[in-house]
């Protein structure tokens, strides 16, 4: 069945901001879908609120709406664009839920929009646990298959939960319906835990429904990725086995593809069940995944769940096999059948086959617990990881060790240094699933653990445990640098660093000896067919094997280093920059080579660059890739400034090894990063920085703080990314901070400009000319990490004179540092003085936001500058605007607001307050003609619609009271009932705002049972919360009240504003919503105003 000709336009819904459980894998799938649909001649209408995505680049759709993904807004877009069809299966649960809501509201019917690639009934059958259970029972009986569901009971209230628990016994699994990433689910070992977990689950489920089921903790866990076309052809793309058995969310598990511990009979039974289930569910076309648990003692198999859409696992499966699930799903949705679609990789064979692997793929999760003090770090069925790394090798040990070093986190790789620790303690630690459990197991092996002991502690399959023993045996055999030792170690995935550590020599010595012996990796192709057919698409991985398959190129090559696993502070924004560079440099005639290890990204799509190396981003792995490429043709440059801190950190070492690093030189990078050197750059340019000093003792710190004046920003000098930063207002708190901080490293103390406006700038510099990409004004007060702060572009309060100063300062820094390419500078404007806070000579998180807000592709331009083009040339080409720049937008330019999205609902018990340490996982953009509307859109996209009526609770710190009066009065004028604690209420009353006094949390319940504010929030009596922090962490009293309030707000999902500036913006937004003037406009429409 060929392509459908009865539809001409298709709407694609993206997944919105990056959150835990829904990350850039949906940018990958959505980007693929948009490319397919456009190349097939369809008009594509895209909706996604996330500006950091590649899919929202105007070139991937005909009309790109960076607007909130709410049924109301999407309906407006449908009314305006009138698409023939809606494809909802590539934007995660967000897109699927939105499509269901649009269907239920009759919107699709009203506008004659056909749902393609999905069937409402199938979505509900897949996600309604009771129906799904019936389906499993039915197919097992009809086909005589070994398959069942876990014994379970559906509950809609706590009473029902308690009754069900009596029937099933503890421990129990609690799973809320219709939530993504396992949100709200967990294990209950007793009634107290059941009450807590099921209570939250009932709240989290949009249908107030939870499922309680028998525990299958410790069982083997598997997943199959399945594709079906409209001719009912079905293929299994990939099997994935979890190394961590049942009990740990798949997203938090170490996983391996293909499955390692199934016989063919067991695998085929699983395959038969998967196919029978998706037929019975009625999945229309496309990809879906289905999860299984297998009892390791009897082989009893339980079908856990299925998702009728592409998922994180399908992104992983696509990268693991070379079978592009999202791309094929898009083709199936528009009418093709699998046998009509060619396999891109072989070109000769069709997509109606099952990939076979002659390598092993291992995925490991990346966590960010260090950012969330107080969070429970035990891994459960509730996903907590923020990213993942994947590695490919020709054996499990090789793939596993490559994956662990891809995490780029100290302590991730196996180590044989020092003492392993106490065996009993290590075994006890292994019993609790945690980040780095494999390493704990490896240490336990060193401490003398037996395979049986480790199996009892972890329930992991003995085969995986034996592989750890195999790795340990190899480590013990490393006693010299001879050929057999090195070959064996390399085949087991040992890095030069690990070998050096074991032998007590340097990494450089190991590498030199290895190269002398000619022991280098070869590069094998991911070809979907285990070499049965020749592969045309160069997607390569390193391995210590026989033959290398790197093709010979004919153009100069540029190697782009990606950003590795997503983490807080380094995510999709950097992938965006790398992908843009690749596209632009290919256009400019270079052969582009991408190196990255993050399976969720667009950069690791084999279609993005001329060649993809799926490799860890360590010095050793990158040097080997550069060597392999140099063997087959000239390398014109290696780009390190687009992938964030990861490649930047390699710059100097690469240059020292003779690698042609292009763009800003490593020495210039050092100038910007080193405090002393950067201070000299600023001094020469006559630019002020906030006063600062360093201290190692409490007394020193007090003296420094007294000298520069409170409040001060303090941070340990040995960490990056804002970790451990705090703002301190008084001497006592400073002393407490110093007491906690490690003593051997000095603490950096900066004057904190608490009444300053913070400004973020992204700029391009070619050595002669500066192009100011955009000037962003933070909406929150100073002191909140720029990544967590909402900001507006163009700035809403800065005038032409200020912009001029900013341009001059940025140019001076760019020149002083020696930037070639992108530069990000953070300023603070206080008392009309422009202070320089820091400069980063690389792509920043805000590059995609600025590019979309101004319709100028900054990363593309940066890539060209790095390869020698000038800004004047790029202006002449039209890549950059001919006359103005981002500091001087045309009159009538729209206002774009970026808002951060925080993962607090994942980490109960963590304070939701914003501070100098970044904790957001993603961002959204609201763009509109006016600031208020743009802000309202950003809030709606990030957290849900701002309330337009009801009760607002206000509790502000003394320093904020004056500034809060006007906006609170405006809220009251809009009809909100104002609730406040006594102190705030009194100030408001004196200013003519009536506020009802409510009890503080620390007051406790009143004599007549009057509830506290926390109780009121939990009871759903409050619609909007304004709660600004009282002091720095570490204190009790009022501050703790704020903590309880914000925690309650998170658990009830109520809008909670923590700054006065945010409040003022929210009031403007609410006014616009009430007036009903929220309009939708595509980026292409905005661009016409911005670029003409």
């Amino acid at each position: 069945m060929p392509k459908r000709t009865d539809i001409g336009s298709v709407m694609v819904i993206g997944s919105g901001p990056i959150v835990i459980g829904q990350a850039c894998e949906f940018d990958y799938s959505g980007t693929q879908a948009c490319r397919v649909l456009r190349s097939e001649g369809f008009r594509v209408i895209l909706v996604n609120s996330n500006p950091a995505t590649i899919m929202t680049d105007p070139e991937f759709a005909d009309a790109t709406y960076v607007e909130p993904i709410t049924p109301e807004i999407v309906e407006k877009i449908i009314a305006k664009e009138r698409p023939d069809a809606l494809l909802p299966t590539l934007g995660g649960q967000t897109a699927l839920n939105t499509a269901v809501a649009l269907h239920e509201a009759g919107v699709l019917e009203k506008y004659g929009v056909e749902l393609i690639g999905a069937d409402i009934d199938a979505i509900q059958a897949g996600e309604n646990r009771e129906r799904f259970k019936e389906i499993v029972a039915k197919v097992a009986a009809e086909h005589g298959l070994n398959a069942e569901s876990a014994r379970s009971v559906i509950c809609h209230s706590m009473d029902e939960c308690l009754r069900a628990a009596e029937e099933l016994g503890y421990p129990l699994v609690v799973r809320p319906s219709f939530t993504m990433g396992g949100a709200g689910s967990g294990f209950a070992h007793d009634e107290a835990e059941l009450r807590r977990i099921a209570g939250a689950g009932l709240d989290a489920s949009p249908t107030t429904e939870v499922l309680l089921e028998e525990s299958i903790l410790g069982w083997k866990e598997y997943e199959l990725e399945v594709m079906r076309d409209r001719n009912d052809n079905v293929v299994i793309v990939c099997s994935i086995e979890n190394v961590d058995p049942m009990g740990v969310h798949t997203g938090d598990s170490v996983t391996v593809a293909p499955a390692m511990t199934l016989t063919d009979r067991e695998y085929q039974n699983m395959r038969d069940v998967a196919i029978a289930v998706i037929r019975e569910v009625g999945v229309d076309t496309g990809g879906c995944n289905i999860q299984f648990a297998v009892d390791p003692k009897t082989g009893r198999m339980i079908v856990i769940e299925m998702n009728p859409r592409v998922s994180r696992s399908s992104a992983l499966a696509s990268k693991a096999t070379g079978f592009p699930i999202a791309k094929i799903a898009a083709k199936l949705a528009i009418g093709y059948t699998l046998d009509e679609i060619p396999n891109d990789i072989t070109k000769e064979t069709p997509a109606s086959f099952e990939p076979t692997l002659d390598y092993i793929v291992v995925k490991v999760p990346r966590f960010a617990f260090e950012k969330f003090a107080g969070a429970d770090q035990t891994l459960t069925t509730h996903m907590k990881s923020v990213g993942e790394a994947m590695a490919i090798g020709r054996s499990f040990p090789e793939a596993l060790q490559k994956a662990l070093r891809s995490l780029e986190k100290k302590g991730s790789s196996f180590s044989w240094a020092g003492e392993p620790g106490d065996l009993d303690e290590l075994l006890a630690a292994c019993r609790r699933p945690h980040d780095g459990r494999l390493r704990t197991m490896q240490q336990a092996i060193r401490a003398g653990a037996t395979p049986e002991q480790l199996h009892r502690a972890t329930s992991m399959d003995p085969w995986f445990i034996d592989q750890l023993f195999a790795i340990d045996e190899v480590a013990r055999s490393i006693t010299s640098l001879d050929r057999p030792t090195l070959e064996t170690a390399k085949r087991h995935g040992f890095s030069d660093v690990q070998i050096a550590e074991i032998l007590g020599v340097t990494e450089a010595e190991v590498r030199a000896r290895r190269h002398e012996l000619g022991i280098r990796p070869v590069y094998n192709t991911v070809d979907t067919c285990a070499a049965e057919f020749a592969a045309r698409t160069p997607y390569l991985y390193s391995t210590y094997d026989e033959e290398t398959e790197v093709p010979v190129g004919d153009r100069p090559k540029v190697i782009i280093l990606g950003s590795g696993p997503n983490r807080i502070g380094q995510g999709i924004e950097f992938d965006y920059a790398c992908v843009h560079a690749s596209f632009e440099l290919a256009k400019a005639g270079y052969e582009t080579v991408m190196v990255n290890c993050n399976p969720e990204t667009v950069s690791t799509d084999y279609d993005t660059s001329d060649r993809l190396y799926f490799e860890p981003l360590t010095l050793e792995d990158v040097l080997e890739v550069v060597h392999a490429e140099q063997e087959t043709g000239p390398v014109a440059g290696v780009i390190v400034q687009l992938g964030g801190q990861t490649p930047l950190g390699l710059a100097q070492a690469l240059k020292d090894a003779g690698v042609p690093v292009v763009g800003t030189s490593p020495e210039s990078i050092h100038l910007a990063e080193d405090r002393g050197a950067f201070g000299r750059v600023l001094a020469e340019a006559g630019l002020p920085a906030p006063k600062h000093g360093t201290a190692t003792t409490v007394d020193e710190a007090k003296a420094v703080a007294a000298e520069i004046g409170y409040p001060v920003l303090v941070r340990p000098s040995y960490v990056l990314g804002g970790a451990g930063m705090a703002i301190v207002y008084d001497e006592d708190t400073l002393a407490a901070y110093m007491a906690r901080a490690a003593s051997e490293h000095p603490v950096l103390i900066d004057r904190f400009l608490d009444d300053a406006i913070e400004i973020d700038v992204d700029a391009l510099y070619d050595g002669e000319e500066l192009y100011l990409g955009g000037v962003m004004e933070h909406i929150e007060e100073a002191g909140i990490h720029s990544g967590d702060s909402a900001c507006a572009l163009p700035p809403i309060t800065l005038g032409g004179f200020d912009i001029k100063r900013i341009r001059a300062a940025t140019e001076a820094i760019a020149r002083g540092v020696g930037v070639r390419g992108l530069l990000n500078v953070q300023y603070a404007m206080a008392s009309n003085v422009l202070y320089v806070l820091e400069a980063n000579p690389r792509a920043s998180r805000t590059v995609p936001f600025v590019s979309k807000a101004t319709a100028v592709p900054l990363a593309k331009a940066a890539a060209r500058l790095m390869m020698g083009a000038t800004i004047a040339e790029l202006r002449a080409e039209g890549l950059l605007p001919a006359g103005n720049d981002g500091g001087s937008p045309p009159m009538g330019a729209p206002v774009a607001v970026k808002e951060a999205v925080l993962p607090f609902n994942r980490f109960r018990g963590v304070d939701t307050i914003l501070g100098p340490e970044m904790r957001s996982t993603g961002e959204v953009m609201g763009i509109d003609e006016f600031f208020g509307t743009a802000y309202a859109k950003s809030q709606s996209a990030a957290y849900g619609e701002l309330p337009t009526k009801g009760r607002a609770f206000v509790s502000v710190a003394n320093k904020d009271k004056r500034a809060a009066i006007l906006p609170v009065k405006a809220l009251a004028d809009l009809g909100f009932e104002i609730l406040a604690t006594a102190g705030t209420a009194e100030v408001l009353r004196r200013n003519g705002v009536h506020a009802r006094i409510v009890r503080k949390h620390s007051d406790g319940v009143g004599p007549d049972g009057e509830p506290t504010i926390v109780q009121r929030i939990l009871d759903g009596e409050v619609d909007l919360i304004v709660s600004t922090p009282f002091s720095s962490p570490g204190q009790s009293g009022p501050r703790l009240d704020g903590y309880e309030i914000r925690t309650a707000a998170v658990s009830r999902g109520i809008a909670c504003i923590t700054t006065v500036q945010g409040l003022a913006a929210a009031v403007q937004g609410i006014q616009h919503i009430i007036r009903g003037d929220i309009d939708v406009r595509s980026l292409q429409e905005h661009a016409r105003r911005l670029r003409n």
Partner: protein
Amino acid sequence: MTALLVLEDGRVFEGTPYGAVGETFGEMVFNTGMTGYQETLTDPSYHRQIVAMTAPHIGNTGVNDEDPESGRIWVAGYVVREPSRIPSNWRSRRSLDDYLRDQGVVGIAMPGTRALTRHLRERGAMRAGVFSEGGDVDELVERVRRSPGMEGADLAREVSTPEPYVVPARGRKRFTVAAVDLGIKAMTPQRMSERGCEVHVLPATVTAADILALDPDGVFFSNGPGDPAAADYAVETLREVLGERVPFFGICFGNQILGRALGLGTYKLRYGHRGVNQPVQDRRTGKVEISAHNHGFAVRAPLDGPFETPYGAAEVSHVNLNDDCVEGLRLLERPAFSVQYHPEAAAGPHDAAYLFDQFCELMDEKKGAKDA
């Protein structure tokens, strides 16, 4: 100890001994299945072949008592990359290493399995030898070149059962099937038995008269090793069966025998199909089956439409979407069909199991006609 895999064109791979120690010769082939090594090893169609597994980790689930496809290992030699150090599965009874050693099967564990596959893909299947203790390479190459090749080899007789035996019908008996064992796999009679067939498994050299003496409702020719051009005795037998209009179903070698009985030619594929992921299209319905394959030879038949045979019109019923190879034949005027791949699928996916139902339908129709 360095073991060597030596190919007839002089390419040599180094590795370590695996399984039994010694030396072995055979046709070098690769199998791309990621599961099912136990079934592969015991499949008689691999007789006189040295099999290289492209999946790196082999032996993880050990060896159990339920999954073998025959009473012994048939492969002449075994090439793997990462032999499992321990077996891990609730059904496992012994390790694969022990199993190979017990049955005297010489193997080699070596890094270069992918390079080997690429070599065979580019240069075609060829003879090879595995030498556990190495040796002088030139001499070993010479010995490999002197070993017998696959073309013209009549091997079905070597693997077939010496005596007839019966696999009873499971449940109510509906049909009597005469199954000629040219290298039959255990799963095949089982698939028929599940459908109410009493299966009489007969030696490869059985005569048509012996078959017809059973008064079978259907006749089946199994898979098997060797060159179909060398099995004229089977071709003759089948011609007589077709002449009697007894419903016929053939698998793999059985498909090639049907092809030859219809007057079609067979030829050796460059490197064969061996794996469990091959897309085969049913040309009537357009549907695609993911199927298990193990064949080095194929039938040459017109793909553009029905063609004439001594038994009336016939057509190519199934085709491989990877290379357009003929994967199935069907007589249009008599109850006979066959496929080149493995609907019994052990190892492999069960997408083609419906073919056994089709065989039963043919027998049912014939019976109905007879009874009426």
